[in-house]
């Protein structure tokens, strides 16, 4: 294959892929501010038609959604704090080659990557702990990903030189102080990476909440969204309603769905380009190990 042909085909594929990623997202955005009738008539393709903010208005006056948003903020905040703390402390300890038993501990962690007790016995354990219907059931069971732990350990190994620690020890610094004062400040990119990974993971998860919570006022946003986006449609049929009020309700519910997707996803997609370098670094570290 000649070079120009090869380059042309490559760029063509790439542009197609980029378009396939962007267009659905773009369409959701313009659909969230367009008159649903215009969408149904097939008039909305490139620009919004019959602009309306009814969807967003309905969104912010819907108690379940507002509560879900607040719950998600709480779960994400607390979960990230706990998760990152455990990953950093354990990751640091496991990075220390001079800690007796390091290999054994590492094996104990890695084994759980390949074999776990399963959804049912995990549920029964959470139940026995009395955590059902509490914030802990959403925050704790998934707090430590072994993959993240390995990335953290590798990062400490590569970025905190042993000589530095020996020097600090000569100055009378113990492990606690060395970890807090020297190792942590040297690994800021790791902390950002872990925090971002956990924020995204907690913000986006719904399954644990679905299993462990049955009090609707505790539902996180994703679970509320699932009920509105998916359950209300899963039983939907092809025929359209004939009664006016039904049509109006239908119209609002469509708008609500589009705007809900925008509001729940925009915050993460908006900050992510600025944090991308950390994720790329994490992916590289993951590939390394």
């Amino acid at each position, binding site marked *: *294959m000649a*070079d120009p042909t*090869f*380059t042309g085909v490559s760029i063509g594929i790439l542009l197609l892929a980029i378009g396939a*990623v962007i267009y*659905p997202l773009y*369409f*959701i955005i313009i659909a969230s501010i367009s008159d649903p009738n215009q969408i*149904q008539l097939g008039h909305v393709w490139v620009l919004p038609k019959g602009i309306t903010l009814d969807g967003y208005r309905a969104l912010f006056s819907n108690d379940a959604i507002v509560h879900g948003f607040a719950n998600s903020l709480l779960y994400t905040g607390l979960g990230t704090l706990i998760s990152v703390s*455990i990953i950093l*402390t*354990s990751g640091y*300890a*496991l990075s220390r080659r*001079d*800690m*007796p038993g390091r290999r054994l501990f590492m094996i*104990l*962690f890695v084994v*759980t990557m390949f074999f*776990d*007790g*399963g*959804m*049912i*016995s995990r*549920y*029964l*354990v959470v139940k026995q702990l009395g955590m059902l219907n509490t914030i802990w059931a959403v925050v704790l069971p998934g707090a*430590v990903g072994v993959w993240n732990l390995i990335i953290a350990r590798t990062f400490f190994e590569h970025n905190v030189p042993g000589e530095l620690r*020996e020097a600090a020890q000569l100055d*009378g610094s*113990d*492990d*606690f102080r060395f*970890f807090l004062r020297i190792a942590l400040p040297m690994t800021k990119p790791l902390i950002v990476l872990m925090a971002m990974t956990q924020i995204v993971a907690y913000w*986006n998860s719904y399954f644990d909440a679905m*299993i462990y919570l049955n009090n609707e006022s505790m539902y996180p946003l*994703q*679970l509320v*969204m699932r009920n509105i*986006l*998916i359950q209300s*449609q*899963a*039983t939907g*049929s*092809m025929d359209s309603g004939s009664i006016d009020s039904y049509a109006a309700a239908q119209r609002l519910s*469509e708008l609500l*769905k*589009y705007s809900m*997707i925008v509001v*729940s*996803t925009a915050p*993460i*997609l908006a900050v*992510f380009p600025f944090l*991308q370098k950390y*994720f*790329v670094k994490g992916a590289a570290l993951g590939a390394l190990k």
Partner: protein
Amino acid sequence: MRISNPARAGAGSLAVRRVSLSRRVRQSWQLYVLLAPGLVYLVIFKYWPMYGAQIAFRNYNPVDGFVGSPWVGLKNFHRFVTSYQFSRLLENTLTVNTLGLIFAFPVPIVLALIVNQLTGERFKKFAQTVLYAPSFISVVVVVGMIYLLFGPRSGLVNQVITLSGHTPIFFMGSPGWFRPLFIGSDIWQNAGFSMIVYLAALTAIDPSLHEAAKVDGANKFQRVWHIELPGILPVITILFILAIGNVFNLGFEKVYLMQTDLNLPTSEVINTYVYKIGLQNAQFSYSAAIGLFNSVLNLVLLLTFNQVARKANQSSLW
């Protein structure tokens, strides 16, 4: 830990190794304290459930607990293997994941090889950012988007179909469309993430190989084929083994969201069945047995492929 004799510190690790084990353990107590929260988590949320998985061999009741409930041996497994659901669940699980692997696995490799060719830094960055972005979107939203875009009446896709003079398709209600939609949306969402991993591996390839190939008259395609692809083969192998290891678990949270009453003939997989039988119908032991069956198959598959990769003298997980 403070080292009592500064003169010995200079001797480095050799000196440390000579110190007795109990002394070293005592010296490291602060490290164990740092490790403790992680270990407690591991015991409570990983090993306790693993210990509890024995209810698969028992007839679990909450009063007698994991160990006290009566032992029934392989009864639960036998019941599953002989149930009329068994072959359908196994087939659905294997089909959706095998097809997923075949169609989804090569995509990020191709994308990474293409993006790696780009010379314009800004466009390269832009392409990476865009392709990577969907992996930050939640499964609930992705599946919600599928319901909206492939909806029967106002869905974007059905509008195109109607405009081109065909009858609309009820995508979410047809068993035949479940797999294409599941795999297609999986590629849409996750190809970018794996692409980043491959790109990282591509940067590690020695540029002098390219120079030498150019001198020998190799064109771009030949250089991609003979230098870059073999260069990232170890990473490809590892990601492939990991993907194989997930064949029975991948994305069942998403499968569950995509299930409708009508597409169940293809969309019911082992893990969604475990959830329904176990947590919705409270048949704990039976569902735990199905889950365990699933995990063991999974592990066997992973070990087999890891072994194959090692025999083939490629990289392996261990």
